[in-house]
């Protein structure tokens, strides 16, 4: 018996050492040693560098040695090639950064935030993400503040909504890349003759046996709530933690909005969803510019765009549908090396500059956030973008919302389509109250 156990341990030990010991540990050790030396070196270099910089600041433009390194960039699949081209140009214009190699990977804006949060250290140095993730990323320590020298320029050059979206607390954390994150109405000219009222659109869709698509979840349902004059904002501190909430959904205004949602969801033409790729047989869809190509393919010559319609509420008054306006942002992750951070900042700044934003519009039709780029004639002539900018006049810049807001709002949307159909006014009020109670308590 004894002998058996000894040998099991012997062989187990070999297994263990193979798996846990050697591989893991050596790698870890060497990596760590390397990291430590690099860090020490960097610290000394940087200390001297700052001293030098301080003394030489007034004299002339100092050409700093930025050292060498690798910079990983994540952008959506359809702009990978575009981004590579722009980065090549950036490197050509800035020979002082020649020590850095930049790699671009296709990671969609949705995935980027999740991946960064899983493991910041393995994540990209510069990455594109959708604005609703800003606070979450800041809380996870995955966003570095924008370099102080760039802050004023960014705030002045970009649309207000985009700047708001990149701000947490009172700190600017990201570089606005686009300002086309909003929704408006695409419609089939041959079916919908007057896109100005929701009732009219629905009636014509029903008559033609066509679908009307609109997502009723968190991002879209505010079209009703903000339209009737409700407010919903969260305060956050500089670390991305939520500190307070202003909300008045549990009111007459909120009731009108929710009633309208329930009524809309009750139409036989109504289909939940605002993604043209998943939609069929529609004559109208509330969607964003990213689906312009898909809708154009589907509707062909009958393709048309308009701002969101007005609706007549349960109180008999007419309201203009509102919504969020937002943007895509480019973030830089916190760096352990100040030189690399400087290079990342410069690159992010470049990739969101007026020129690159215009190039990007021309390449993939992403609407710019830069005010000068917005006034470019090609941008102005874009049907979808002009409908969106018309709609933007009625919308509210999207600030930061806790992750649970979105799931609660999705829940409300689910109830509006099922449980609340045909419910009494008291039930609707109760639903509003419980929604407000839950959401306003979120932190």
């Amino acid at each position, binding site marked *: 018996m*004894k*002998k*058996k156990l*000894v*040998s*099991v*341990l012997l*062989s*187990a*030990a070999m*297994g*263990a*050492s193979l*798996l*846990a*010991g050697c591989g893991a*540990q050596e790698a*870890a*050790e060497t990596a760590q040693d390397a990291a430590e030396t690099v860090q020490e070196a960097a610290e000394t270099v*940087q200390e001297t560098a700052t001293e030098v910089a301080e003394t030489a600041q007034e004299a002339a433009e100092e050409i700093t040695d930025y050292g060498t390194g690798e910079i990983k960039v994540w952008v959506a699949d359809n702009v990978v090639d575009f981004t590579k081209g722009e980065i090549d140009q950036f490197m050509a214009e800035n020979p002082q950064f020649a020590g850095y190699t930049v790699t671009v990977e296709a990671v969609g804006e949705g995935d980027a935030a*999740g991946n960064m*949060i899983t493991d*910041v*250290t393995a994540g990209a140095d510069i990455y594109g993400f959708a604005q609703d993730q800003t606070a*979450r990323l800041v*809380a*996870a*320590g995955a966003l*570095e*503040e924008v*370099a102080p020298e760039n802050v004023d320029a960014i705030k002045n050059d970009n649309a207000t909504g985009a700047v708001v979206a990149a701000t947490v607390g009172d700190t600017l954390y990201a570089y606005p890349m686009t300002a086309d994150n909003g929704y408006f109405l695409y419609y089939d000219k041959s079916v919908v003759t007057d896109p100005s009222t929701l009732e009219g659109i629905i009636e014509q869709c029903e008559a033609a046996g066509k679908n009307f698509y609109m997502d009723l979840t968190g991002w879209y349902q505010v079209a009703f709530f903000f339209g009737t004059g409700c407010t919903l904002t969260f305060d956050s501190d500089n670390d991305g933690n939520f500190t307070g909430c202003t909300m008045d959904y549990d009111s007459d205004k909120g009731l009108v909005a929710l009633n309208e949602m329930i009524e809309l969801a009750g139409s*036989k*033409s109504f*289909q*939940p*969803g605002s993604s043209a790729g998943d*939609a069929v*047989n529609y004559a109208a869809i509330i969607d964003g510019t990213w689906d312009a190509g898909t809708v154009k393919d589907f509707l062909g010559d009958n393709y048309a765009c308009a701002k969101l319609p007005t609706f007549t509420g349960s109180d008999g008054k007419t309201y203009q549908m509102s919504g969020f306006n937002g943007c895509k942002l480019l973030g830089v992750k*916190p*760096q352990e*090396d*100040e030189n690399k*951070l400087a290079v990342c900042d410069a690159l992010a700044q470049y990739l969101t500059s007026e020129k690159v934003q215009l190039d990007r519009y021309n390449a993939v039709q992403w609407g710019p956030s830069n005010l000068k780029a917005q006034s470019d004639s090609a941008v102005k002539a874009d049907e979808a973008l002009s409908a969106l900018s018309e709609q933007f006049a009625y919308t509210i810049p999207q600030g930061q919302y806790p*992750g*649970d807001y979105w*799931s*609660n709002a*999705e*829940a*409300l*949307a*689910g*109830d509006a*389509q*099922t449980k609340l159909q045909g419910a009494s006014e008291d039930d609707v009020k109760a*639903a509003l109250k*419980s*929604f407000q*109670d*839950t959401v306003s308590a979120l932190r």
Partner: protein
Amino acid sequence: MSNASEKKSNSVSTFFSAVGNIFKVIGTTFVNGDWKTKISYLIMGFGQIARGQFLRGGAFLAIEALFIWFVSTFGGKYLSKLGTLGTIETYKKNRKTVYGDNSFLILLFGLLTLFFILFLVICWYLNIKDNAKEEELIKAGKKLPGSKADFLSLFDNNFDKTLLALPVTGVFIFTVLPIVFMICVAFTNYDATHQAPSKLFTWVGFANFKNLFSFASGGFGSTFVSVLIWTLVWALLATFIDYFLGIAVAMLINKKGIRFKKFWRTCLVMTIAVPQFVSLLYVSKMFDNAGIINGTLMKLGIIQSAIPFWTNPTLAKITIVVVNIWIGIPYLMLMATGLLMNIPADLYESASIDGATPWQMFRHITMPYMLFVTGPYLLSSYTGNLNNFNVIYLLTGGGPKSMSYAGGAGGTDLLVTWLYKMTINDTDYKMAAVIGIMVFIVTALIFMNAYNFLPSIKDEEGFQ
């Protein structure tokens, strides 16, 4: 195993006497042992090497050396911080970020080091026992087995150790360690606002468990109960509906006079062969409001507006169970086909001579036999369905959501999909870990209760 209950009753006293025995061995061996044995208390394997048993002595020594190297270069620094999970905060130096302690890695590698220590203690004890045994053999005037004999025994009497060493180590590092880690997380405040590497997290005791059982607004209590109930119901439906329908289809194909048996089977078996992420994603789009099914029904004028297969909670539950039949029947059909053939044909013959109807034969011959032999399968399939992630996630993603649920749960969420979403979307690891523990407890309770009723499990040796 047949006397399992007997064993259980005195297992506590057995355990204590075993522990006592261990200390006795350690003590007496030290007192009675020679100097070689005594040195082995410090330098493992010394006694064996001194007595010429180089292989096993060397192995013990190697383990100790490995341990010292591991703890001093890697494990030690994590282990020392395990109590607090780190105290050094991340800070900014100019614009540079200087990372402090990483609570996550401290917990993970601290546990790994603890595992290693446990392993060393066991080896140390065995080393002592082995020394005592050798001394005994020498005293009795017997020859000790040499290194070659030790080595050869690894392929003969100790072949099981050779076979199991790698698999057991693998399971310990890649299954047991992560599970212990997540159990520990349930007692910390690891969530969206306490994420490594930039923030620290720490031990909080039972606070998360209190939150799970809080039924106040915002608490997880009522959601947990409704998700749990659906999980149990789902597993029951998914297991038994598939089971009976699968047997029925198998019997239909096996029926006398039905031709092309192989063809029918092959058609059904396609669902097993085609990867689920392809077929289930396709099926989920089929049932979509805009999918083929709704589209066709509307074109034919059978329905006016789309049937909300996935957006109505009740309908979504039914649809999932139905789609799961589609997935499950082929497996059951294959299994039942093989088993049905094992039922002695004369049983049916004598029954039909007695004038039994097919239904009676099914009830009194087929079903009892099937239930008897497939008992263990049914049980493991039930627990498998409790944690059936793929079907739910690929079909509905757990939706539709409703206000009556907390923590982002939806109408078709099982406990597993719920906790998956909790980690991925909300980074709420502490609550996910708590729910994970609950899933484990529920599964284990069901299993333990059912396990002992199964005739075919009780009598393992009987089958051979």
